[in-house]
Protein backbone atom coordinates (compact mmCIF):
# COMPACT_ATOMS: atom_id res chain seq x y z
CA UNK A 1 0.00 0.00 0.00
CA UNK A 2 2.75 2.44 0.84
CA UNK A 3 4.52 1.65 -2.42
CA UNK A 4 1.27 2.57 -4.14
CA UNK A 5 1.08 5.83 -2.21
CA UNK A 6 4.68 6.65 -3.10
CA UNK A 7 4.05 6.08 -6.76
CA UNK A 8 0.65 7.76 -6.81
CA UNK A 9 1.88 10.89 -8.60
CA UNK A 10 3.68 8.88 -11.26
CA UNK A 11 0.77 6.51 -11.89
CA UNK A 12 -1.21 8.86 -14.19
CA UNK A 13 1.85 8.77 -16.48
CA UNK A 14 2.75 5.11 -16.00
CA UNK A 15 -0.72 3.66 -16.55
CA UNK A 16 -1.22 5.05 -20.08
CA UNK A 17 2.39 4.18 -20.98
CA UNK A 18 1.85 0.59 -19.84
CA UNK A 19 -1.52 0.37 -21.55
CA UNK A 20 0.07 1.70 -24.73
CA UNK A 21 2.90 -0.84 -24.53
CA UNK A 22 0.43 -3.67 -23.95
CA UNK A 23 -1.63 -2.49 -26.91
CA UNK A 24 1.51 -2.85 -29.00
CA UNK A 25 1.95 -6.39 -27.69
CA UNK A 26 -1.60 -7.21 -28.81
CA UNK A 27 -0.99 -5.59 -32.20
CA UNK A 28 -3.02 -8.19 -34.08
CA UNK A 29 -5.94 -8.46 -31.68
CA UNK A 30 -8.14 -5.41 -32.09
CA UNK A 31 -10.58 -6.69 -29.47
CA UNK A 32 -7.81 -6.78 -26.87
CA UNK A 33 -6.70 -3.28 -27.83
CA UNK A 34 -10.23 -1.95 -27.43
CA UNK A 35 -10.56 -3.60 -24.05
CA UNK A 36 -7.18 -2.17 -23.01
CA UNK A 37 -8.31 1.26 -24.17
CA UNK A 38 -11.39 1.23 -21.98
CA UNK A 39 -9.85 -0.49 -18.97
CA UNK A 40 -6.64 1.55 -19.09
CA UNK A 41 -8.47 4.87 -19.16
CA UNK A 42 -10.90 3.70 -16.47
CA UNK A 43 -7.97 2.82 -14.24
CA UNK A 44 -6.44 6.19 -15.05
CA UNK A 45 -9.67 7.91 -14.03
CA UNK A 46 -9.83 6.05 -10.72
CA UNK A 47 -6.20 6.81 -9.89
CA UNK A 48 -6.61 10.46 -10.82
CA UNK A 49 -9.61 10.78 -8.50
CA UNK A 50 -7.47 9.35 -5.74
CA UNK A 51 -4.64 11.74 -6.62
CA UNK A 52 -7.04 14.68 -6.43
CA UNK A 53 -8.34 13.65 -3.00
CA UNK A 54 -4.82 13.08 -1.73
CA UNK A 55 -3.66 16.45 -3.09
CA UNK A 56 -6.63 18.11 -1.43
CA UNK A 57 -5.56 16.59 1.88
CA UNK A 58 -1.85 17.36 1.67
CA UNK A 59 -1.80 20.58 -0.38
CA UNK A 60 1.21 19.53 -2.47
CA UNK A 61 2.40 16.05 -3.36
CA UNK A 62 6.02 15.88 -4.46
CA UNK A 63 7.95 12.94 -5.82
CA UNK A 64 11.69 13.09 -6.39
CA UNK A 65 12.35 10.81 -9.33
CA UNK A 66 15.05 8.22 -8.75
CA UNK A 67 15.68 9.53 -5.25
CA UNK A 68 17.57 12.57 -6.57
CA UNK A 69 16.41 15.44 -4.47
CA UNK A 70 15.30 18.70 -6.06
CA UNK A 71 16.77 20.86 -7.51
CA UNK A 72 19.21 18.28 -8.89
CA UNK A 73 16.78 15.57 -9.97
CA UNK A 74 13.49 15.77 -11.80
CA UNK A 75 10.47 16.19 -9.57
CA UNK A 76 6.83 15.40 -10.16
CA UNK A 77 4.58 17.85 -8.35
CA UNK A 78 0.86 17.59 -7.89
CA UNK A 79 -0.83 20.74 -6.70
CA UNK A 80 -4.54 21.41 -7.10
CA UNK A 81 -4.26 22.78 -10.64
CA UNK A 82 -2.23 19.79 -11.82
CA UNK A 83 -4.53 17.33 -10.06
CA UNK A 84 -7.62 18.95 -11.60
CA UNK A 85 -6.05 18.76 -15.06
CA UNK A 86 -5.10 15.10 -14.56
CA UNK A 87 -8.61 14.16 -13.53
CA UNK A 88 -9.96 15.94 -16.61
CA UNK A 89 -7.54 13.93 -18.74
CA UNK A 90 -8.94 10.82 -17.08
CA UNK A 91 -12.54 11.84 -17.80
CA UNK A 92 -11.94 12.82 -21.42
CA UNK A 93 -9.67 9.81 -22.00
CA UNK A 94 -12.30 7.41 -20.70
CA UNK A 95 -15.10 9.12 -22.64
CA UNK A 96 -13.21 9.03 -25.93
CA UNK A 97 -12.02 5.47 -25.36
CA UNK A 98 -15.64 4.32 -25.01
CA UNK A 99 -16.68 6.49 -27.96
CA UNK A 100 -13.88 5.00 -30.06
CA UNK A 101 -15.51 1.58 -29.79
CA UNK A 102 -18.12 2.79 -32.25
CA UNK A 103 -16.23 5.56 -34.05
CA UNK A 104 -12.85 4.05 -34.89
CA UNK A 105 -13.00 1.42 -37.58
CA UNK A 106 -10.77 -1.53 -38.36
CA UNK A 107 -8.62 0.49 -40.74
CA UNK A 108 -7.56 3.04 -38.15
CA UNK A 109 -7.04 0.36 -35.53
CA UNK A 110 -4.68 -1.42 -37.87
CA UNK A 111 -2.52 1.71 -38.09
CA UNK A 112 -2.09 1.75 -34.33
CA UNK A 113 -4.80 4.06 -33.07
CA UNK A 114 -4.84 2.70 -29.52
CA UNK A 115 -1.08 2.74 -28.74
CA UNK A 116 -0.93 6.36 -29.97
CA UNK A 117 -4.02 7.25 -27.95
CA UNK A 118 -2.38 6.02 -24.74
CA UNK A 119 0.90 7.73 -25.57
CA UNK A 120 -0.95 11.02 -26.02
CA UNK A 121 -2.57 10.66 -22.60
CA UNK A 122 0.79 9.87 -21.01
CA UNK A 123 2.34 12.96 -22.59
CA UNK A 124 -0.50 15.19 -21.46
CA UNK A 125 -0.38 13.91 -17.88
CA UNK A 126 3.40 14.20 -17.82
CA UNK A 127 3.17 17.84 -18.85
CA UNK A 128 0.68 18.53 -16.06
CA UNK A 129 2.64 16.82 -13.32
CA UNK A 130 6.26 17.70 -13.96
CA UNK A 131 8.04 20.29 -11.89
CA UNK A 132 11.03 20.61 -14.18
CA UNK A 133 11.02 22.99 -17.12
CA UNK A 134 13.09 20.83 -19.46
CA UNK A 135 11.03 17.81 -18.55
CA UNK A 136 7.98 19.86 -19.53
CA UNK A 137 9.53 20.27 -22.98
CA UNK A 138 10.10 16.53 -23.24
CA UNK A 139 6.48 15.76 -22.32
CA UNK A 140 5.31 18.34 -24.83
CA UNK A 141 7.23 16.48 -27.50
CA UNK A 142 5.84 13.09 -26.44
CA UNK A 143 2.36 14.56 -26.69
CA UNK A 144 3.10 16.25 -30.02
CA UNK A 145 4.54 13.18 -31.70
CA UNK A 146 1.50 11.13 -30.67
CA UNK A 147 -0.84 13.88 -31.84
CA UNK A 148 0.94 14.19 -35.21
CA UNK A 149 0.43 10.51 -35.89
CA UNK A 150 -3.20 10.55 -34.69
CA UNK A 151 -3.92 13.57 -36.85
CA UNK A 152 -2.86 11.92 -40.08
CA UNK A 153 -4.27 8.47 -39.28
CA UNK A 154 -6.24 7.58 -42.38
CA UNK A 155 -4.13 9.61 -44.78
CA UNK A 156 -6.77 11.70 -46.55
CA UNK A 157 -5.80 14.83 -48.45
CA UNK A 158 -7.37 17.24 -45.97
CA UNK A 159 -5.55 15.52 -43.14
CA UNK A 160 -2.19 15.93 -44.87
CA UNK A 161 -2.80 19.60 -45.54
CA UNK A 162 -4.00 20.22 -42.01
CA UNK A 163 -1.11 18.22 -40.56
CA UNK A 164 1.57 20.26 -42.37
CA UNK A 165 0.30 23.45 -40.74
CA UNK A 166 -0.20 21.79 -37.38
CA UNK A 167 3.23 20.14 -37.37
CA UNK A 168 5.11 23.22 -38.56
CA UNK A 169 3.61 25.68 -36.12
CA UNK A 170 3.89 23.30 -33.19
CA UNK A 171 7.54 22.60 -34.00
CA UNK A 172 8.27 26.31 -34.23
CA UNK A 173 6.62 26.70 -30.85
CA UNK A 174 8.74 23.88 -29.40
CA UNK A 175 11.93 25.45 -30.73
CA UNK A 176 11.05 28.80 -29.19
CA UNK A 177 10.33 27.00 -25.94
CA UNK A 178 13.72 25.29 -26.13
CA UNK A 179 15.46 28.60 -26.85
CA UNK A 180 13.72 30.15 -23.86
CA UNK A 181 14.79 27.24 -21.65
CA UNK A 182 18.38 27.67 -22.82
CA UNK A 183 18.40 31.37 -21.98
CA UNK A 184 16.69 30.78 -18.66
CA UNK A 185 19.23 28.13 -17.78
CA UNK A 186 22.05 30.47 -18.70
CA UNK A 187 20.55 33.09 -16.41
CA UNK A 188 19.73 30.95 -13.37
CA UNK A 189 21.75 27.75 -13.72
CA UNK A 190 18.85 25.49 -12.82
CA UNK A 191 15.90 23.77 -14.47
CA UNK A 192 13.67 23.07 -11.50
CA UNK A 193 10.75 25.48 -11.77
CA UNK A 194 10.62 26.22 -8.06
CA UNK A 195 14.37 26.83 -7.98
CA UNK A 196 14.14 29.06 -11.05
CA UNK A 197 11.44 31.09 -9.29
CA UNK A 198 13.71 31.55 -6.27
CA UNK A 199 16.78 32.47 -8.27
CA UNK A 200 15.07 34.84 -10.66
CA UNK A 201 14.39 37.02 -7.64
CA UNK A 202 18.15 37.66 -7.41
CA UNK A 203 18.74 38.35 -11.10
CA UNK A 204 19.60 41.98 -11.69
CA UNK A 205 19.04 42.08 -15.43
CA UNK A 206 15.24 42.24 -15.29
CA UNK A 207 15.07 43.28 -18.93
CA UNK A 208 16.39 39.90 -20.03
CA UNK A 209 13.92 38.15 -17.74
CA UNK A 210 11.09 39.92 -19.51
CA UNK A 211 12.52 38.93 -22.89
CA UNK A 212 12.51 35.28 -21.79
CA UNK A 213 8.99 35.70 -20.46
CA UNK A 214 7.90 36.91 -23.89
CA UNK A 215 9.54 33.89 -25.54
CA UNK A 216 7.56 31.63 -23.24
CA UNK A 217 4.41 33.60 -23.95
CA UNK A 218 4.77 33.23 -27.72
CA UNK A 219 5.66 29.55 -27.46
CA UNK A 220 2.77 28.61 -25.16
CA UNK A 221 0.54 31.03 -27.03
CA UNK A 222 1.00 28.97 -30.19
CA UNK A 223 0.21 25.77 -28.30
CA UNK A 224 -2.82 27.32 -26.62
CA UNK A 225 -4.02 28.79 -29.95
CA UNK A 226 -4.09 32.37 -28.66
CA UNK A 227 -4.40 35.40 -30.95
CA UNK A 228 -2.62 35.88 -33.36
CA UNK A 229 -1.02 32.43 -33.34
CA UNK A 230 -4.08 30.22 -33.70
CA UNK A 231 -4.22 29.58 -37.46
CA UNK A 232 -3.09 25.98 -37.23
CA UNK A 233 -6.10 25.03 -35.13
CA UNK A 234 -9.08 25.68 -37.43
CA UNK A 235 -6.97 24.36 -40.33
CA UNK A 236 -6.46 20.95 -38.76
CA UNK A 237 -8.90 20.09 -35.97
CA UNK A 238 -11.78 19.20 -38.27
CA UNK A 239 -9.77 16.75 -40.38
CA UNK A 240 -9.16 13.59 -38.26
CA UNK A 241 -11.67 11.10 -36.86
CA UNK A 242 -14.13 12.66 -34.45
CA UNK A 243 -12.84 10.76 -31.42
CA UNK A 244 -9.39 12.22 -32.13
CA UNK A 245 -10.83 15.70 -32.67
CA UNK A 246 -12.64 15.50 -29.36
CA UNK A 247 -9.50 14.42 -27.52
CA UNK A 248 -7.48 17.24 -29.14
CA UNK A 249 -10.21 19.81 -28.56
CA UNK A 250 -10.53 18.79 -24.92
CA UNK A 251 -6.93 18.39 -23.89
CA UNK A 252 -4.23 19.67 -26.23
CA UNK A 253 -4.73 23.43 -26.33
CA UNK A 254 -5.44 23.30 -22.62
CA UNK A 255 -1.95 21.96 -22.04
CA UNK A 256 -0.71 25.24 -23.50
CA UNK A 257 -3.08 27.18 -21.26
CA UNK A 258 -1.93 25.16 -18.26
CA UNK A 259 1.70 25.94 -19.10
CA UNK A 260 0.84 29.65 -19.31
CA UNK A 261 -0.88 29.47 -15.93
CA UNK A 262 2.05 27.65 -14.38
CA UNK A 263 4.83 29.77 -15.81
CA UNK A 264 3.16 33.16 -15.45
CA UNK A 265 2.23 32.62 -11.82
CA UNK A 266 5.25 30.73 -10.52
CA UNK A 267 8.21 32.01 -12.54
CA UNK A 268 7.39 35.30 -14.24
CA UNK A 269 5.59 37.31 -11.61
CA UNK A 270 8.23 40.05 -11.32
CA UNK A 271 6.85 42.43 -13.91
CA UNK A 272 3.14 41.77 -13.75
CA UNK A 273 2.17 45.23 -15.00
CA UNK A 274 3.94 44.59 -18.28
CA UNK A 275 3.50 40.87 -18.99
CA UNK A 276 -0.06 40.50 -17.78
CA UNK A 277 -1.13 43.67 -19.57
CA UNK A 278 -0.03 41.98 -22.80
CA UNK A 279 -1.87 38.82 -21.76
CA UNK A 280 -4.98 40.91 -21.20
CA UNK A 281 -4.93 42.25 -24.76
CA UNK A 282 -4.15 38.78 -26.14
CA UNK A 283 -7.12 37.44 -24.19
CA UNK A 284 -9.54 40.03 -25.51
CA UNK A 285 -8.41 39.70 -29.13
CA UNK A 286 -8.45 35.89 -28.87
CA UNK A 287 -12.05 35.93 -27.65
CA UNK A 288 -13.17 38.31 -30.39
CA UNK A 289 -11.39 36.74 -33.37
CA UNK A 290 -12.42 33.25 -32.31
CA UNK A 291 -16.08 34.04 -32.01
CA UNK A 292 -16.19 36.13 -35.19
CA UNK A 293 -14.42 33.35 -37.07
CA UNK A 294 -17.04 30.91 -35.84
CA UNK A 295 -19.86 33.17 -36.96
CA UNK A 296 -18.55 33.01 -40.53
CA UNK A 297 -18.38 29.19 -40.66
CA UNK A 298 -20.96 26.69 -41.86
CA UNK A 299 -19.28 23.42 -41.05
CA UNK A 300 -20.10 21.79 -37.74
CA UNK A 301 -16.59 21.00 -36.56
CA UNK A 302 -15.08 24.24 -37.90
CA UNK A 303 -17.55 26.29 -35.89
CA UNK A 304 -16.58 24.29 -32.81
CA UNK A 305 -12.86 24.71 -33.60
CA UNK A 306 -13.19 28.49 -33.72
CA UNK A 307 -15.07 28.40 -30.46
CA UNK A 308 -12.12 26.65 -28.82
CA UNK A 309 -10.11 29.76 -29.68
CA UNK A 310 -12.64 32.19 -28.26
CA UNK A 311 -12.91 30.13 -25.06
CA UNK A 312 -9.13 30.06 -24.67
CA UNK A 313 -9.45 33.85 -24.47
CA UNK A 314 -11.60 33.59 -21.34
CA UNK A 315 -9.05 31.36 -19.64
CA UNK A 316 -6.18 33.70 -20.48
CA UNK A 317 -8.33 36.60 -19.29
CA UNK A 318 -8.55 34.91 -15.91
CA UNK A 319 -4.75 34.68 -15.78
CA UNK A 320 -4.25 38.22 -17.08
CA UNK A 321 -6.43 39.91 -14.44
CA UNK A 322 -4.24 38.18 -11.84
CA UNK A 323 -6.48 38.49 -8.80
CA UNK A 324 -7.43 35.47 -6.68
CA UNK A 325 -10.97 35.54 -8.02
CA UNK A 326 -9.80 35.84 -11.64
CA UNK A 327 -7.39 32.89 -11.38
CA UNK A 328 -10.15 30.89 -9.70
CA UNK A 329 -12.40 31.78 -12.62
CA UNK A 330 -9.71 30.77 -15.11
CA UNK A 331 -9.29 27.35 -13.50
CA UNK A 332 -13.06 26.87 -13.28
CA UNK A 333 -13.33 27.86 -16.93
CA UNK A 334 -10.71 25.31 -18.02
CA UNK A 335 -12.53 22.63 -16.09
CA UNK A 336 -15.92 23.46 -17.56
CA UNK A 337 -14.62 24.03 -21.06
CA UNK A 338 -12.78 20.72 -21.44
CA UNK A 339 -15.89 18.71 -20.61
CA UNK A 340 -18.27 20.79 -22.71
CA UNK A 341 -16.08 21.14 -25.78
CA UNK A 342 -15.17 17.46 -25.97
CA UNK A 343 -18.86 16.65 -25.67
CA UNK A 344 -19.82 18.96 -28.54
CA UNK A 345 -17.25 17.30 -30.78
CA UNK A 346 -18.56 13.87 -29.81
CA UNK A 347 -22.08 15.00 -30.75
CA UNK A 348 -20.85 16.28 -34.11
CA UNK A 349 -19.45 12.81 -34.74
CA UNK A 350 -22.77 11.16 -33.94
CA UNK A 351 -24.68 13.50 -36.27
CA UNK A 352 -22.10 12.73 -38.95
CA UNK A 353 -22.71 9.00 -38.54
CA UNK A 354 -26.47 9.54 -38.72
CA UNK A 355 -26.54 12.02 -41.62
CA UNK A 356 -23.23 11.54 -43.40
CA UNK A 357 -22.17 15.18 -43.43
CA UNK A 358 -20.55 17.91 -41.36
CA UNK A 359 -21.89 20.73 -43.56
CA UNK A 360 -24.75 22.62 -41.95
CA UNK A 361 -26.43 23.07 -45.34
CA UNK A 362 -26.73 19.33 -45.83
CA UNK A 363 -27.93 18.58 -42.34
CA UNK A 364 -31.39 18.96 -40.92
CA UNK A 365 -34.39 17.35 -39.33
CA UNK A 366 -32.46 15.62 -36.57
CA UNK A 367 -34.82 16.86 -33.87
CA UNK A 368 -37.66 15.07 -35.62
CA UNK A 369 -35.80 11.80 -35.95
CA UNK A 370 -33.64 11.93 -32.79
CA UNK A 371 -35.19 14.30 -30.22
CA UNK A 372 -32.97 12.88 -27.49
CA UNK A 373 -29.83 13.93 -29.38
CA UNK A 374 -31.27 17.43 -29.78
CA UNK A 375 -31.70 17.67 -26.04
CA UNK A 376 -28.20 16.32 -25.45
CA UNK A 377 -26.80 18.94 -27.83
CA UNK A 378 -28.63 21.75 -26.06
CA UNK A 379 -26.95 21.01 -22.71
CA UNK A 380 -23.30 21.56 -23.72
CA UNK A 381 -24.22 24.19 -26.34
CA UNK A 382 -26.05 26.39 -23.86
CA UNK A 383 -23.38 25.71 -21.28
CA UNK A 384 -20.75 26.93 -23.75
CA UNK A 385 -22.75 30.09 -24.32
CA UNK A 386 -23.00 30.56 -20.55
CA UNK A 387 -26.68 30.15 -19.73
CA UNK A 388 -27.66 29.34 -16.14
CA UNK A 389 -27.86 26.93 -14.45
CA UNK A 390 -25.20 25.13 -16.48
CA UNK A 391 -21.48 25.10 -15.70
CA UNK A 392 -20.60 27.72 -18.31
CA UNK A 393 -22.72 30.35 -16.58
CA UNK A 394 -20.73 30.14 -13.38
CA UNK A 395 -17.41 30.03 -15.22
CA UNK A 396 -18.24 33.22 -17.13
CA UNK A 397 -19.86 34.81 -14.10
CA UNK A 398 -16.74 34.40 -11.95
CA UNK A 399 -14.41 35.81 -14.59
CA UNK A 400 -16.66 38.76 -15.39
CA UNK A 401 -17.15 39.47 -11.70
CA UNK A 402 -13.35 39.45 -11.30
CA UNK A 403 -13.08 41.85 -14.22
CA UNK A 404 -15.59 44.23 -12.63
CA UNK A 405 -13.72 44.14 -9.34
CA UNK A 406 -10.51 45.41 -10.93
CA UNK A 407 -12.51 47.74 -13.19
CA UNK A 408 -11.25 46.25 -16.44
CA UNK A 409 -14.37 47.49 -18.20
CA UNK A 410 -13.20 46.82 -21.74
CA UNK A 411 -12.39 43.19 -20.95
CA UNK A 412 -15.78 42.77 -19.24
CA UNK A 413 -17.56 44.24 -22.25
CA UNK A 414 -15.69 41.95 -24.65
CA UNK A 415 -16.42 38.91 -22.49
CA UNK A 416 -20.14 39.70 -22.45
CA UNK A 417 -20.38 40.38 -26.18
CA UNK A 418 -18.47 37.19 -26.97
CA UNK A 419 -20.85 35.24 -24.74
CA UNK A 420 -23.75 36.60 -26.76
CA UNK A 421 -22.10 35.75 -30.08
CA UNK A 422 -21.36 32.24 -28.78
CA UNK A 423 -25.07 31.85 -28.16
CA UNK A 424 -25.69 33.01 -31.74
CA UNK A 425 -23.35 30.32 -33.10
CA UNK A 426 -24.91 27.60 -30.98
CA UNK A 427 -28.42 28.61 -32.01
CA UNK A 428 -27.24 28.60 -35.62
CA UNK A 429 -26.11 24.98 -35.26
CA UNK A 430 -29.33 24.09 -33.47
CA UNK A 431 -31.47 25.67 -36.20
CA UNK A 432 -29.55 24.16 -39.07
CA UNK A 433 -28.83 20.70 -37.77
CA UNK A 434 -31.79 19.90 -35.58
CA UNK A 435 -34.70 22.26 -36.19
CA UNK A 436 -34.98 22.93 -39.93
CA UNK A 437 -36.46 20.26 -42.17
CA UNK A 438 -34.22 17.81 -43.94
CA UNK A 439 -33.03 19.62 -47.11
CA UNK A 440 -34.71 18.28 -50.22
CA UNK A 441 -32.61 16.03 -52.39
CA UNK A 442 -30.21 15.08 -49.63
CA UNK A 443 -31.39 12.02 -47.82
CA UNK A 444 -29.69 10.21 -45.00
CA UNK A 445 -26.58 9.56 -47.01
CA UNK A 446 -25.86 6.07 -45.82
CA UNK A 447 -26.61 3.77 -43.00
CA UNK A 448 -23.76 3.82 -40.51
CA UNK A 449 -23.02 0.17 -41.17
CA UNK A 450 -22.03 -0.48 -37.59
CA UNK A 451 -23.49 -0.13 -34.15
CA UNK A 452 -23.52 3.41 -32.82
CA UNK A 453 -24.41 2.23 -29.35
CA UNK A 454 -21.11 3.18 -27.68
CA UNK A 455 -21.35 6.76 -28.89
CA UNK A 456 -24.25 7.50 -26.56
CA UNK A 457 -22.87 6.78 -23.05
CA UNK A 458 -19.95 9.28 -23.27
CA UNK A 459 -22.23 12.00 -24.63
CA UNK A 460 -24.83 11.43 -21.92
CA UNK A 461 -22.19 11.14 -19.21
CA UNK A 462 -20.42 14.37 -20.17
CA UNK A 463 -23.75 16.23 -20.47
CA UNK A 464 -24.71 15.06 -16.98
CA UNK A 465 -21.31 16.22 -15.68
CA UNK A 466 -21.96 19.68 -17.12
CA UNK A 467 -25.35 19.85 -15.43
CA UNK A 468 -23.89 18.53 -12.19
CA UNK A 469 -21.13 21.16 -12.13
CA UNK A 470 -23.82 23.79 -12.68
CA UNK A 471 -26.29 22.60 -10.08
CA UNK A 472 -23.86 21.36 -7.50
CA UNK A 473 -20.81 23.50 -8.11
CA UNK A 474 -19.64 24.11 -4.57
CA UNK A 475 -16.96 21.36 -4.42
CA UNK A 476 -15.66 22.35 -7.85
CA UNK A 477 -15.62 25.98 -6.81
CA UNK A 478 -13.68 25.13 -3.67
CA UNK A 479 -11.15 23.11 -5.64
CA UNK A 480 -10.64 26.00 -8.06
CA UNK A 481 -10.39 28.38 -5.11
CA UNK A 482 -7.69 26.29 -3.51
CA UNK A 483 -5.73 26.06 -6.74
CA UNK A 484 -5.94 29.84 -7.16
CA UNK A 485 -4.58 30.27 -3.62
CA UNK A 486 -1.72 27.92 -4.39
CA UNK A 487 -0.91 29.59 -7.70
CA UNK A 488 -0.74 33.05 -6.18
CA UNK A 489 1.11 32.09 -3.00
CA UNK A 490 4.13 30.59 -4.74
CA UNK A 491 6.11 30.16 -1.52
CA UNK A 492 4.01 27.09 -0.66
CA UNK A 493 4.88 25.41 -3.95
CA UNK A 494 8.54 26.33 -3.63
CA UNK A 495 8.80 25.07 -0.08
CA UNK A 496 7.01 21.83 -0.92
CA UNK A 497 9.38 21.13 -3.81
CA UNK A 498 12.70 22.32 -2.44
CA UNK A 499 12.20 21.70 1.26
CA UNK A 500 12.64 24.27 4.01
CA UNK A 501 16.30 23.28 4.60
CA UNK A 502 17.37 24.08 1.07
CA UNK A 503 15.67 27.47 1.08
CA UNK A 504 17.29 28.29 4.41
CA UNK A 505 20.72 27.37 3.10
CA UNK A 506 20.11 29.57 0.06
CA UNK A 507 19.27 32.48 2.33
CA UNK A 508 22.39 31.79 4.39
CA UNK A 509 24.51 31.92 1.26
CA UNK A 510 22.98 35.24 0.28
CA UNK A 511 23.99 36.72 3.61
Amino acid at each position, binding site marked *: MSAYMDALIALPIIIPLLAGALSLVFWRSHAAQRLLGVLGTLLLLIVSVHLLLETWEQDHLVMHMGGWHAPFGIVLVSDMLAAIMVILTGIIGFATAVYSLSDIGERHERFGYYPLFHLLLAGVNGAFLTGDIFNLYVWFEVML*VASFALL*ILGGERAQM*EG*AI*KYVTLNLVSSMLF*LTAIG*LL*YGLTGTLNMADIAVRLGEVEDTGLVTVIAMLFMVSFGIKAAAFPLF*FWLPASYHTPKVAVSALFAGMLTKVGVYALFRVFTLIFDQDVDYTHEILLWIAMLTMLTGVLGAAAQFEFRRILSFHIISQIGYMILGLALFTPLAILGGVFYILHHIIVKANLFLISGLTYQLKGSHELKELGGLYRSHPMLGLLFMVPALSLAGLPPLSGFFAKFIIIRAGIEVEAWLAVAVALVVGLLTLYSMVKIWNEVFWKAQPAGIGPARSPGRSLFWMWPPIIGLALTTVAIGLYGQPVFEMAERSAEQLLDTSRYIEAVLGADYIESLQEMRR
Partner: protein
Amino acid sequence: MEIVMAFVIGFLYAAALYMMLRRSIVKLVIGLVLLSNAANLVIFTAAGLVRGAPPLIYPGELLPPSASADPLAQALILTAIVIGFGVLAFAVVLIHRAYEVVGADDMDQMKDTDT
Protein backbone atom coordinates in the same frame (compact mmCIF):
# COMPACT_ATOMS: atom_id res chain seq x y z
CA MET B 1 33.87 33.55 -28.81
CA GLU B 2 30.41 34.26 -27.47
CA ILE B 3 30.07 37.10 -29.95
CA VAL B 4 30.85 34.79 -32.86
CA MET B 5 28.38 32.22 -31.55
CA ALA B 6 25.73 34.91 -31.19
CA PHE B 7 26.15 35.87 -34.82
CA VAL B 8 26.10 32.24 -35.95
CA ILE B 9 22.90 31.59 -34.00
CA GLY B 10 21.29 34.76 -35.28
CA PHE B 11 22.18 33.82 -38.83
CA LEU B 12 20.74 30.32 -38.33
CA TYR B 13 17.45 31.72 -37.03
CA ALA B 14 17.26 34.15 -39.93
CA ALA B 15 18.01 31.43 -42.47
CA ALA B 16 15.46 29.11 -40.85
CA LEU B 17 12.74 31.74 -40.96
CA TYR B 18 13.56 32.61 -44.55
CA MET B 19 13.34 28.96 -45.58
CA MET B 20 10.06 28.47 -43.75
CA LEU B 21 8.50 31.45 -45.45
CA ARG B 22 9.14 29.96 -48.89
CA ARG B 23 6.30 28.16 -50.60
CA SER B 24 8.04 24.82 -51.07
CA ILE B 25 7.36 22.23 -48.37
CA VAL B 26 10.85 20.77 -48.76
CA LYS B 27 12.35 24.13 -47.87
CA LEU B 28 9.92 24.26 -44.97
CA VAL B 29 11.48 21.12 -43.51
CA ILE B 30 15.00 22.46 -44.10
CA GLY B 31 13.92 25.55 -42.18
CA LEU B 32 12.77 23.36 -39.29
CA VAL B 33 16.14 21.56 -39.23
CA LEU B 34 18.02 24.85 -39.05
CA LEU B 35 15.69 26.14 -36.35
CA SER B 36 16.26 23.10 -34.17
CA ASN B 37 20.04 23.43 -34.55
CA ALA B 38 19.87 27.11 -33.69
CA ALA B 39 17.94 26.34 -30.50
CA ASN B 40 20.54 23.74 -29.50
CA LEU B 41 23.34 26.22 -30.01
CA VAL B 42 21.52 28.75 -27.83
CA ILE B 43 21.53 26.28 -24.94
CA PHE B 44 25.18 25.51 -25.61
CA THR B 45 26.20 29.15 -25.60
CA ALA B 46 23.96 30.31 -22.79
CA ALA B 47 25.39 27.69 -20.45
CA GLY B 48 28.83 29.24 -20.89
CA LEU B 49 31.63 28.32 -23.28
CA VAL B 50 34.57 26.69 -21.53
CA ARG B 51 37.61 25.56 -23.44
CA GLY B 52 39.52 22.36 -22.73
CA ALA B 53 38.09 21.72 -19.25
CA PRO B 54 36.02 18.54 -19.11
CA PRO B 55 33.86 18.21 -15.99
CA LEU B 56 35.88 15.35 -14.50
CA ILE B 57 36.52 14.80 -10.82
CA TYR B 58 40.17 13.95 -10.30
CA PRO B 59 41.23 11.24 -7.81
CA GLY B 60 41.20 12.40 -4.24
CA GLU B 61 38.91 15.35 -4.86
CA LEU B 62 35.20 15.83 -4.28
CA LEU B 63 34.47 18.45 -6.92
CA PRO B 64 35.55 19.06 -10.50
CA PRO B 65 37.89 22.00 -11.08
CA SER B 66 35.97 25.23 -10.69
CA ALA B 67 36.15 26.41 -14.32
CA SER B 68 35.06 23.19 -16.02
CA ALA B 69 32.39 22.82 -18.66
CA ASP B 70 28.75 22.37 -17.65
CA PRO B 71 27.71 18.76 -18.34
CA LEU B 72 24.00 19.42 -17.80
CA ALA B 73 23.71 21.73 -20.81
CA GLN B 74 25.29 19.06 -22.98
CA ALA B 75 22.85 16.47 -21.66
CA LEU B 76 20.00 18.83 -22.54
CA ILE B 77 21.31 19.33 -26.05
CA LEU B 78 21.73 15.60 -26.52
CA THR B 79 18.10 15.06 -25.50
CA ALA B 80 16.96 17.88 -27.73
CA ILE B 81 18.91 16.51 -30.69
CA VAL B 82 17.35 13.07 -30.28
CA ILE B 83 13.83 14.48 -29.99
CA GLY B 84 14.46 16.85 -32.87
CA PHE B 85 15.72 14.00 -35.02
CA GLY B 86 12.63 11.90 -34.37
CA VAL B 87 10.25 14.73 -35.02
CA LEU B 88 12.02 15.78 -38.19
CA ALA B 89 12.02 12.21 -39.48
CA PHE B 90 8.26 12.33 -39.06
CA ALA B 91 8.08 15.68 -40.82
CA VAL B 92 10.03 14.34 -43.80
CA VAL B 93 7.68 11.37 -44.14
CA LEU B 94 4.74 13.72 -43.79
CA ILE B 95 5.82 16.01 -46.61
CA HIS B 96 6.52 13.01 -48.77
CA ARG B 97 3.00 11.68 -48.19
CA ALA B 98 1.55 15.15 -48.66
CA TYR B 99 3.43 15.46 -51.93
CA GLU B 100 1.98 12.13 -53.09
CA VAL B 101 -1.56 13.05 -52.09
CA VAL B 102 -1.58 16.65 -53.26
CA GLY B 103 0.75 16.18 -56.21
CA ALA B 104 2.65 19.40 -55.67
CA ASP B 105 5.50 20.78 -53.61
CA ASP B 106 3.72 24.08 -53.16
CA MET B 107 2.03 25.46 -50.05
CA ASP B 108 -0.30 27.48 -52.27
CA GLN B 109 -1.88 24.21 -53.43
CA MET B 110 -2.66 23.26 -49.85
CA LYS B 111 -5.25 25.79 -48.86
CA ASP B 112 -8.32 23.55 -48.85
CA THR B 113 -8.53 23.30 -45.11
CA ASP B 114 -7.95 27.01 -44.53
CA THR B 115 -10.87 29.23 -43.94
